[in-house]
């Protein structure tokens, strides 16, 4: 009886250990990669409220390797403006996004960043310079002043996601299961005040 109990408990321990061993890398890397919205500022410009934000892209080893091997990565910077409603869910006033593509060019040994909306192209000889180019958002219009009603509460949210469905097909199942590919940030919200 005792033997079986101890066997059982040792089995449990082993299982727990295995889980920990499997999770540890994920836990330890958790801070070393992923996108983070560092700061944001809301200002007025003309008739609108504008958002300026700084993001920090830290790629995982796996993502870097993929990029080095010519896999393009697509990033979406989602921006939304919310109006709080006490009795219902928040009303979304503005919901827009900016899409970037980053790809390595072997011939030129360059990283090329393309704004998918404006089709603008930028070339960088280093990865960090390329990532930096995507990390600043300046004077992005979030709300018309005319729409602002005093007494209401507004918030501006920003989120950066890696579009995993734009990855090459064979990589997608892995991207959905491997934490190395969990690079998207969470929503970060700032209150919008007059």
């Amino acid at each position, binding site marked *: 009886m005792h033997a079986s109990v101890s066997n059982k408990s040792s089995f449990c321990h082993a299982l727990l250990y295995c889980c920990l061993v499997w999770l540890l890398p994920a836990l330890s890397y958790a801070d070393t990669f992923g996108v983070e919205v560092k700061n944001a500022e809301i200002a007025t410009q003309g008739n609108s409220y504008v958002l300026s934000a700084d993001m920090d892209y830290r790629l995982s080893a796996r993502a870097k*390797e*993929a990029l080095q*091997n*010519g*896999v393009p990565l697509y990033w979406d910077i989602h921006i939304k403006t919310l109006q709080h409603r006490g009795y219902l869910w928040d009303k979304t006033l503005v919901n827009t996004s900016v899409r970037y593509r980053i790809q390595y*060019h*072997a*011939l*030129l040994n*360059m990283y*090329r960043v393309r704004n998918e909306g404006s089709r603008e*192209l930028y*070339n960088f*000889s280093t990865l960090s*310079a390329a990532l930096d180019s995507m990390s600043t958002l300046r004077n992005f219009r979030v709300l018309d002043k005319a729409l602002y009603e005093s007494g209401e509460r507004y918030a501006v949210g920003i989120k950066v996601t890696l579009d*995993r*469905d734009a990855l*090459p*097909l*064979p*990589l*997608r*199942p*892995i991207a*959905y299961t491997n934490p190395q590919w969990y690079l998207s940030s969470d929503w970060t919200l700032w209150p919008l005040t007059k």
Partner: protein
Amino acid sequence: MAFDKIKPPISLSILVLFGLILLLLQLMSSATQESSELSAMYSWLLLVNALGSVVLLGLVGANIYSLARQLKKREAGSRLTTRMVSLFVVLALAPAAIVFYFSMQFLHQGIDSWFNVEIDRAMEDALELSQASLDQRMRWHLRQTQQLTAKLVESSETLATLEMENLRELSGASEMTLFSRQGRIIASSSINPGDILPSLPDEHTWLQLRQNAEYVALAPVREDELMIRVIVTVKGKEPQYLQALYPVPVRIADLADSVEFAFVRYQEMHFLRHSLKLSFSLALSLVLLMSLLAAIWVAFISIRNIVAPVKALVKGTQAVASGHYDQELPVMAQDDLGFLVESFNEMTHRIARASDETRMAGIEVENQRAYLETILANLTAGVISFDAEHKIRTANQAAYRIFHIHVNQFVGRTLLELVQSYAELAEPLKSIQRLLEQADDIWQQRIAFLGSNGRQELLCRGTPLFSQEGLRVGAVVVFDDVTDLIQAQKNAAWGEVARRLAHEIKNPLTPIQLSAERLQHKLADKLTAVDAEMLQRSTTTIVQQVEAMKEMVDDFSEYAKPSKKQTVDIDLPGLVQEVLALYALKSGVKFKADYDTGLLMIKGDPVSIRQVLHNLIKNALEAIDAKGLIEISLHRVQKNNTDFIEIALYDDGPGIKDEQIEQIFEPYVTTKVKGTGLGLAIVKKIIEEHGGAIWVDTSRKVGAGFIIQLPACNF
């Protein structure tokens, strides 16, 4: 029933399901082609297919669980289902597993075969070649530009502006710009006159320029257009920078682009090799899993449908085996099993009909038997049947009535065994047994014996029973109690005799008497005294004897004449008291009377009954010689569901000899010196006329005893 009608046929559902699965798998397969529009849905399709597999797995699991439960309960058809399902699974799994294994092998080998060292090297070399080619061109343009600077050294800004167009055309550059040290545009010329603002180097370029005094690099202007940007220092008092943008010839640019595209594609594939294998394996596994699970599930459904009639048949057979013949199984299909079910239904119908007929026949036989038994039971004649060993098989009520023993209780025993329990019946039983053993044909015999009710006479007829093969299987004995009949015959005969005697004898008696008296009268005077005295004596004797004879003849006629009874209700105790009172004065005789309480009434002629009592008491007095005890008791008894009043009369005289008991009630049987021998005969006659019986109580050892039973009067 209505639900069945609107339910689509199962085969259609299965077809639809398979179609759906095929469509999903095809969609997934198409989505794996990168160029396909479906590729965006790849993840969703994968998820849907995986969910479908899980659902199918659940269905199969539920089926297996239900089958296991049926097996545990040993339900009909469960073992057949298990065997068929296992067979199907093995048959389906084996080739699928083989195909799967080899497909995986081919897949991995195929993907691996795309990549090898030679192609790796060739790709890298091709890229390097492109880079070298572009490099060479860049260096050439650098040298060319450096040569051009000589013309600009120490020239004024105005001159430089004029010279710029020249230099540009000379060098073949598409754009040429002169910058001051601070980055200000001094002069600019473009092949495209519309370009007002020249292409400006970025900060990074400036940094490099200041370090190396020259800069050359490929600049992608647009998506598929390459430029060589060369910046060199124009030496002078105030150093200036000359930037020239040279277009890369379209052919070279295309080639380089193509090489790069191929290289990148190859690199990407190389990098994705493992993911590719995984992804293909996943898709293949999903296809296999889903189709197998669907096949197994459909197998479960179809096998269940196939086994359903078998199951019904097993249940039906079990029901028939346990005696429920009213089984009607539904015919589900017009195939062999349907035919089997139809045959089963027909069989059960026939069995049910046959069983009904048997039951009806049984009831009929039973009715017949009961009818015969009723007839037998109500026969007045006793009927006993015997088997081959002369053991009693059946006996009717009358047999009991005649023998006063429950012959029914002795079924299976022989008559000789009965003798041991009923010694008084030894004589008739032994006689019958002997006749049973001896007779080979119908026999008839009259058997007389002394039963508990006195002397009884039986008329027995026996018939041996033979089987169809001629073997003796038993016998039937029918017997009638003819005691009363014979007695009646005897009585009738005696009555006739008495009547004739009375007639024949009484007629001459009066002349004899008259003649004797006349002789006396005529001759008395003429004779001597002695003779006269003798004559007197003789005449007196004749007259007395004639008187006696007259009396006797009167008795006879009394006995012979039919009774003229006046029936009234008689209170027996009163009557007995009345009669006893006449004898009460006799000294030396004690009377003891014992009556039951309550009414003891009979219907009868009081004169006759009184005569009966007188005769019996007179007999008793004579027997005890006027000294002793006479007991009379009156009791109410029940015999054959009829109430009787029993009069028992006992004396303590010498009793009746055994040999006389049998004939004591017959006329002219007497033990007395005096008497006609008609007293008891008359008593018996009267009693029988009243529907009663009289017999000598043989159980009494002291003195004589008579028992009379008369039907009681019921109020």
